């Protein structure tokens, strides 16, 4: 048969694709990459960042861009998979971006960072919360506009044991890198504090048909509260099933759950659930403007990490302007020394890359909305 014809065709198509996408070099603009999950099941965490970056850049471009040049966004999808993220990163490097807003998931970020580091590209993530990203010192080019997991776990544990005064806690997680990481910090902190006791520490199976067995176990363990590390779909199933069983165990979770979708899906069962999340800055004028711009353009409220991404984009553009160049060292200095007014308040970065001025608070669902309580 035509095996070689087919191979030839495949090869020819490949090569032509390669050439087509290989020769698009243009230095008239300053390019910023936006990487993250823009398709697949985690797309709802990645798309708001793209919208945020677009809104900021439109705003700046309308005011003359930065360093006299227009800003151009290069948006690339990594589906939150490490193996795809390396290709995405390579593509962005090839496009000669000066900085990247992203990635969204910690695993993908780790895989991509090495490539950015080698090419002296700054990377600011709106959502990668894994502590070693900043604390290990392996990634000097990494910054984030969100607090790391350990800070969040600390807050949850303190809230559960001190504010609410619980003695028996169940720690659950979704076995994912984000959820399990958080749960492990929480577990270690509860153990070292010695105030409360962990009566149950379990990973649940994402996508399981139901969670009645693990909830029975929680009930049987006598836990007063559950600290859950993971995202909102599983959380709303857990809470819903728990309340239907007549269990009134308190549910404390993280910023993966502090999402309006959670309330929408869990409905009445969401009432009373606690979640930690970035401090409420919605009364901040910049934040109101950003939210309004999103409303005007898309006709709906912004999604997860929108404000973080908005702040990240503002921060990098500000740094480019302050540094007066797109040079890596100058940018690093500007990021770490200059305070900038963003949608998250006035922030700067410490020398590890964590944002100064971005804090977490505890929220509770009251009458169908998240209310900041601490």
């Amino acid at each position, binding site marked *: 048969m035509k095996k070689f014809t*087919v191979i030839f065709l495949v090869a020819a198509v490949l090569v032509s694709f390669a050439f087509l996408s290989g020769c698009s070099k243009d230095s008239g603009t300053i390019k910023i990459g936006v990487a993250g999950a823009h398709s697949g099941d985690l797309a709802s965490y990645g798309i708001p960042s793209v919208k945020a970056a677009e809104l900021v850049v439109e705003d700046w471009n309308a005011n003359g861009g930065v360093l006299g040049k227009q800003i151009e966004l290069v948006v690339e999808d990594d589906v939150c998979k490490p193996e795809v993220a390396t*290709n995405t990163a*390579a593509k962005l490097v*090839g496009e000669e971006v000066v900085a990247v807003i992203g990635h969204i998931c910690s695993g993908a970020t780790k895989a991509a960072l*090495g490539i950015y580091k080698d090419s002296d590209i700054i990377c600011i993530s709106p959502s990668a919360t894994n502590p070693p990203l900043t604390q290990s010192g392996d990634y000097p080019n990494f910054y984030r506009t969100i607090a790391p997991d350990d800070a969040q776990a600390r807050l949850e544990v303190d809230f559960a044991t001190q504010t609410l005064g619980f003695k028996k806690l169940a720690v659950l997680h979704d076995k*994912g890198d984000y959820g399990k990481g958080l749960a492990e910090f929480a577990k270690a902190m509860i153990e070292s504090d010695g105030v409360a006791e962990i009566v149950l520490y379990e990973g649940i199976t994402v996508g399981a048909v139901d969670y009645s067995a693990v909830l029975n176990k929680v009930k049987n363990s006598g836990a007063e509260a559950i600290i859950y590390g993971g995202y909102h779909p599983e959380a709303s199933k857990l809470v819903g099933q728990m309340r239907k069983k007549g269990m009134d165990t308190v549910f404390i979770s993280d910023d993966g759950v502090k999402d309006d979708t959670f309330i929408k899906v869990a409905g009445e069962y969401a009432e009373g659930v606690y979640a930690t999340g970035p401090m409420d800055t919605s009364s901040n004028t910049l934040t109101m403007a950003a939210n309004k711009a999103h409303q005007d353009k898309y006709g709906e409220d912004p999604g997860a990490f929108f404000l973080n991404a908005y702040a990240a984009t503002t921060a990098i553009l500000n740094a480019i302007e302050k540094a007066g160049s797109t040079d890596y060292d100058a940018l690093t200095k500007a990021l770490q020394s200059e305070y900038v007014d963003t949608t998250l308040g006035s922030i700067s970065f410490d020398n590890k890359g964590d944002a100064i001025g971005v804090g977490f608070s505890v929220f509770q669902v009251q009458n169908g909305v998240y209310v900041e309580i601490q």
Partner: protein
Amino acid sequence: MSDTAKNGLSRYITAKDVKRSAIMAVWFMFLTFPIMVIKVNTVTDTVEWRWFNMLIIGVASFILSHVWKLMIDRREGRMADAVSSSVIVEKKTLRDRMEEKPMIKKVGSLVILVIAVLFPIVTGMYQTSIMITALLYVVLALGLNIIVGLGGLLVLGYIVFYGVGAYTYALLNYHFGLNFWLALPLGGIFAMIIGILIAIPVLRLRGDYLAIVTLAFGEIFRIVMENWNGLSFGPSGIANIPRPTLFGLDFSIQQSTTLTYYVIVIFVIITIFIVRRLEDSRLGRAWVAMREDEIAGEAMGIDMWKTKLAAFALSTFWAGVAGVIFAGKTTFINPASFTMWESILVLCMVVLGGMGSIPGVISGALIITLLPEYLRAFSELRMLIFGAVLVLVMVFKPEGMIPAIRQKYEFKGITGNKNKGDK
């Protein structure tokens, strides 16, 4: 071309066809009505009626049903052709011509080789990086082809061995600082050991039972890796795995990506070479016998147990090696990269391309990995298109895009040697 096929092509559309297509259109409009037309929001209790979608579906299925009918007719025609013509006329295909003139094949292979060698130089790092991913899947697909295509054993957990290879490198490097080049064979050997250990208890299972058991092993591997933090660092994975370098030199990412590319190209060539050799070997023929009829094979004195084990061992070795290269390429691994979905994908490559056929499997792997990458423009629709392509290729080319040709061994008289006829 036969009469039936001609009729299928040039036939004008009759009233009957229109009626049939109209019925199809109505049927699909009915079928997709709830999901395409109605969108409810149970929170705000609002319902959106998207009648326009229904119109699109109606028109699209009206047209597509014509195309479908035409294609099915052609397919039937071709099948009828094949039956009638196989005895009388042998059509000269490119493959036959290649047999007659080995030059075509040689020149073709040379051109492909030159393209492969020049690829990273001509294109950028992004293209090279994508190509590495694609070639990794080529190695995986060729490896799985040994079990599935040649041996006829359905395995749905192949990605385990890829994972074993990747973790071998990551962990040995983390604990003992082992470098890439040493890990390369070790990853393969380790995957092979695991492969044999898994194979021993399950080899007596047949067909779909084997498939599900290997699927189960695949899931167990992933879940254990997620939970056993002490061994695998759980879902947060292992970062900072060094990229391959040469002679202890400091390589830039660009350079080591290029190096990885050449490593994988060499591995693809070695794999092709070995699989080609194996096909004609005693073992290869034993595999084919096993695929066609196990009992008859056993009756001919083939030790089925050993044959199966050999298929597993060899096949898993390649997966392990590919895993090491994968870890070296991404520098970060976690269990999420080794899901059942990946196993299914590799199986799709083998079957889509043509089981047992090396050029087929390679094309299958390249198309499946590169299609979604280049379909990014249609990001939302790409998986939909991909699913449809799988169905369509299978319906219209059930043997795969480039089916394997059966070896024919002919006995040409007493004086002549036993010649290999058509290949």
